[in-house]
């Protein structure tokens, strides 16, 4: 028993606190149901896990019980300090030979609580990065338990099951990581422990679950989070590119996107060539009326945003609006275009903010046939 305590003390406490103490807490709770603890050992355990309690080191370590390592668990108590409060009582029930005159159990309890809570918080914040230490701790734990190794592994799932009932989120996260780590390291009772990883509750910061059979190192966790974000964005892109609803899989989606972008760019090129040809051959006067024409454009601009509307539907719309404009426009082109262009912006903004057809009120102020525009919008929305 003494060698176990020494090996425990030699561990790096900063790193191992959570892992070791959690496991010990689990086992102590299990043990509390079958009382074997004695007072001496409790004191000794307190000393071993809390190096500050040096005054207790002189106590008797003779009675070798297998539970000494579990004693600090009660301080963790998975945040359940009721457990801890009960502990001094339980301690008092047992072994009466030694007196704890150096540090009263309550004070020890308080100190341990504060220490472990801080341990938990720090461990929580850096839990992901402490896997190496946990590995080492696990190995040491196995070596220290020695004969109790099998029992360690057997008891662990049950203790963990007990802890699951406690339901502290902070505790849960560390446990799940420890558990999954344990399974990957020890590769025993993996199914039970890993399935519990899925029950971990979410914390305030971004929490990625360690799924069954997957590694839990920080790289793969970050990678997984990144992949999920990317798949979410791919879904949004699916809405944007027409005809992608049936395609599953990232590669197929990317293919579609590539094709679509290429086709759009080719269209732009083709249209620009046509415009250039037009520009060189025709007078520029019609150019001034372009904004007027495009004033009817908000409907057309919205169309690509709606899925599945092919381009050819724009042509009847445009023709109708062109006719309307040519028939109704009586003002000089310049002012008409300015007025209509400015109105178009407000209308397009309004119509995009809400897709209802009641946005046609501003049309009445125009110099155009509102019925014509209403028809155009009807066609646009269907």
């Amino acid at each position, binding site marked *: 028993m003494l060698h176990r305590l020494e090996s425990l003390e030699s561990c790096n406490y900063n790193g191992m606190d959570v892992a070791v103490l959690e496991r010990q807490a689990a086992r102590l709770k299990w043990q509390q149901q079958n009382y074997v603890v004695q007072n001496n050992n409790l004191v000794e355990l307190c000393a071993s896990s809390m190096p500050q309690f040096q005054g207790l080191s002189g106590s008797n370590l003779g009675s070798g019980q297998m539970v000494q390592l579990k004693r600090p668990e009660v301080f963790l108590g998975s945040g359940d300090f009721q457990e801890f409060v009960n502990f001094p009582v339980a301690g008092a029930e047992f072994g009466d030979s030694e007196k704890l005159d150096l540090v009263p159990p309550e004070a020890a309890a308080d100190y341990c609580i504060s220490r472990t809570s801080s341990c938990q918080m720090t461990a929580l914040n850096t839990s992901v990065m402490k896997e190496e230490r946990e590995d080492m701790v696990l190995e040491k734990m196995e070596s220290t338990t020695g004969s109790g190794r099998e029992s360690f592994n057997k008891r662990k799932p049950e203790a963990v099951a007990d802890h699951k009932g406690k339901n502290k989120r902070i505790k849960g996260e560390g446990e799940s990581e420890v558990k999954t780590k344990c399974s990957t390291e020890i590769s025993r009772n993996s199914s039970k422990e890993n399935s519990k990883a899925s029950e971990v509750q979410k914390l305030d910061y971004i929490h990625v679950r360690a799924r069954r059979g997957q590694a839990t190192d920080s*790289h793969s966790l970050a*990678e997984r989070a*990144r992949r999920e*974000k*990317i798949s*979410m*964005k*791919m879904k*949004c*892109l699916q809405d*944007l*590119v027409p005809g992608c609803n049936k395609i599953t899989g*990232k*590669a197929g989606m*990317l*293919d579609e*996107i*590539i094709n679509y*972008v*290429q086709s*759009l*760019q080719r*269209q*732009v*090129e083709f*249209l*620009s*060539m046509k*415009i*250039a*040809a037009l*520009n*060189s051959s025709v*007078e*520029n006067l*019609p*150019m*001034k009326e*372009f*904004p007027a*024409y*495009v004033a009817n*454009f*908000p409907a*057309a*601009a919205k*169309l*690509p*945003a709606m899925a599945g509307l092919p*381009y050819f539907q*724009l042509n009847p719309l*445009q*023709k109708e609006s*062109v006719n309307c404009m040519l028939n109704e426009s009586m003002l000089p082109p310049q002012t008409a275009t300015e007025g209509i*262009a400015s109105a*178009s*912006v407000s209308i*397009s*903004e309004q119509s*995009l903010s809400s897709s209802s057809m009641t946005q046609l009120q501003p049309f009445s102020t125009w110099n155009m046939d509102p019925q014509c525009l209403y028809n155009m919008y009807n066609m646009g929305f269907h």
Partner: protein
Amino acid sequence: MEGCMKERKRVYPMEPWKIMQPSFAAKYVGYLVPALTNIGKRASPSVDRCIDTEKIVRYEIDMALALSAEGFAWSHALKHKLRPNVDNHNHAGKSQSYLAHDDDHRNTMPVNHEPATKKLKVDTKRSETEAAEEERLTYLRKLIPGGSGEMMVDDEILLIELGSYVSCLELQVNVLRSMLQFN
């Protein structure tokens, strides 16, 4: 799409291009029409005029796209590609170089997969499909202006920029079509 927006905790929506869509058309036309008018006015009866006009028009079209869609990495990159030195004097020259650069890689899929990135080296479990995805992503980077730059190294940002670029391209095509229709 609204589902995507709700899930995120950010203040601004996931698809910022939706905000600028209404004003895009107006801005675009507002820029392009005067520019085209100016081109017509700058008439020089030379033989090469057709080719130059094409390039100038193309330049103006792309410039209008870049100016109408402020706030995106690709529009920023496009603007810089078109106007590397702020001064606009040599339109023809710039448009030539710009178009020449584009035509080279526009229609060719890369035959060889580009040298393995860090990610592929580190994670040895990447399957063939993922390598194919990487290939497509690099090709997409070539398509989108500024895709190979330092702004879009991250895949997430690339996808967001892709979304805005695709929607702006659609709007641009619509505007150009309507302009031609009118004539």
